[in-house]
């Protein structure tokens, strides 16, 4: 039976427009939420700030070089993004499924990648307010300073790091899509080891070359290491030479995006075969 001749496939431009609208629409949910849920601001700003303060005070008590306080403040800001990648983005499809509305996304004609990119951009926008609050708090309360002349390259490396981190989040999202509860528990168990491996509160090179390189599969590890090198030079005790880091982050982004797209498609098809995509509590 032939399709209606009047219903032609949408052109590339129409498809692109539809997917861009989906990206914007999904991102806007996060942005609106960030201004309407004041309890989130406390949970995602005040508590991480307290954890960061503890490390600042420890370094201060030990009379560590002042740069270390800068490391901690940068790490505190980066933790907000990593938490958003795991708990705000990667696990989102799992929550949508538990609430019974994953199917509403899966029956839409837009690419699942568009929905994930929307979640990522919205998450970045939402988390940036938290990260800025942590940085501002660090600067005002602990008088941490960052050379403004190096802000632009640091910002560039920061953007590349977010690209790689959120692309990794898209891969994790496909795992959450099908094995939600198991992946949820695994992510919760691995949270502290990942904080350690990423060197959020200390130079990652302190763990030794092998462990630090292994930890560098997480984009935030390398990104944070690079940003610290941009601001503090050799005092940052960098793991890899700074010029290596941007290309590695770009390569990781492309690699993760490719894998995420393949895995998302694979997981969706597996779910459709096994009938698990819309089953709650699985």
């Amino acid at each position, binding site marked *: *039976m*032939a*399709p*209606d001749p009047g*219903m032609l*496939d*949408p052109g590339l431009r*129409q498809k692109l*427009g*539809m997917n861009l*609208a*989906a990206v*914007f*629409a*999904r991102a*806007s*949910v996060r942005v*609106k*939420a960030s201004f*309407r*849920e004041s309890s989130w601001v406390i949970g995602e700003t005040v508590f991480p700030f307290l954890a960061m303060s503890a490390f600042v005070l420890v370094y201060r008590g030990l009379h560590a070089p002042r740069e270390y306080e800068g490391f901690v403040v940068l790490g505190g800001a980066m933790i907000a993004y990593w938490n958003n990648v795991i708990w705000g983005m990667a696990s989102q499809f799992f929550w949508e499924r538990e*609430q*019974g*509305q994953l*199917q*509403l*996304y*899966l*029956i*839409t*004609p*837009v690419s699942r990648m568009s*929905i994930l990119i929307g979640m990522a951009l919205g998450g970045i926008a939402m988390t940036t307010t938290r990260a800025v609050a942590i940085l501002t708090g660090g600067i005002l309360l602990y008088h941490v300073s960052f050379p403004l002349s190096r802000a632009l390259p640091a910002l560039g490396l920061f953007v590349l790091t977010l690209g790689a981190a959120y692309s990794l989040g898209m891969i994790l999202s496909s795992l959450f899509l099908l094995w939600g509860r198991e992946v949820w528990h695994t992510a919760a168990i691995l949270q502290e080891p990942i904080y350690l491996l990423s060197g959020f509160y200390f130079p990652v090179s302190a763990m030794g070359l092998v462990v630090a390189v292994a930890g560098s599969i997480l984009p935030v590890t390398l990104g944070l290491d690079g940003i610290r090198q941009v601001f503090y030079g050799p005092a940052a005790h960098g793991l890899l030479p700074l010029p290596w880091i941007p290309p590695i982050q770009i390569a990781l982004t492309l690699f993760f995006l490719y894998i995420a797209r393949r895995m998302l498609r694979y997981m969706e*098809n597996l779910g*459709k*075969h*096994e*009938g698990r*995509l*819309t089953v709650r509590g699985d």
Partner: protein
Amino acid sequence: MTDAIDVRGLTRTFKARRRSGEVRALQGVDLTVHRGECFGLLGPNGAGKSTLIKILTTLLLPTSGRALVTGYDVATEPFQVRRRINLVSGGDSSGYGVLTVRETLHLFSQFYGVPGPVARRRAEELMQVTGLAEKADQKLSSLSTGMRQKLNFARGFMSDPEVIFLDEPTLGLDVEASRDVRAFIARWVRERPDRTVLLTTHYMMEADELCGRVAIIDHGRILALDTPTALKRTLPAEPVFEFQVSATGQDLDRLRGIAGVRSMSHHAHPATGAVQLRVVVDEDDVIGEVLGRLKGLERSVLHLTKMEPTLETVFIHHVGRGLTDEEEERDGA
């Protein structure tokens, strides 16, 4: 023009969870739904209705057979199918607590590429007809469950789909809200003769009121498919009378001996204490003899109705039990 839905030899099996082997949710289903139809799918829990809908909405792959929606194969051309369909599952809610009703409707329209001005106009119309207009700027977190279900219902129509799947759309809604929803579906179909509705429901009256044709499905097979009127005509033609008679008097089972009475049953009416008596006779004339015998048994006739066949009786005839029986069994389990 292609049919809205065309299903041939559709089979779907699942691995059994608690035992070895497999569960056959659909067993060689053949079904055609024409464009412009409001088509009802009736069946008890576990009959295969939801599995069929999940396959038709590209959420599940068939084990074998073929399913086309608006001419496109759900397994190999899901994108084309998704552009043309939408789904409302009753009892579910959609959206996020931090968004308002208006924002939620707009959000879901954007996943179908509905242009902004069209989406805004459509959202206003849908909020009006579903009684959500007054709540347009309220956050979902402050809405009642019924209101959230109405919102979910309105969401399904935001993309103005060619085929909409309504899976128990009035489940959990109060009487007034259910009536509004039914009125909306009837109006939507009437105003858009090229649009198609596939409706599953537990409420026979709902299917009778809305659907041009209905299919009765059980154990993954379609047992009957026709217009409600034609299905009722297929029932055995014996007249059925229902009496309400006084509780006191002699034994009603003596009615069984009357020539022309095929069967009878009776039970106490829980609310009034009177006795509800159901008599199936060969022909209408026999009822005069039944009335005379009741007088002899010192039973006063409080009420008498000749029962017309309903979709419920058609359903019981084919499935062997009513949907309400099933619910009562489950509740009592």
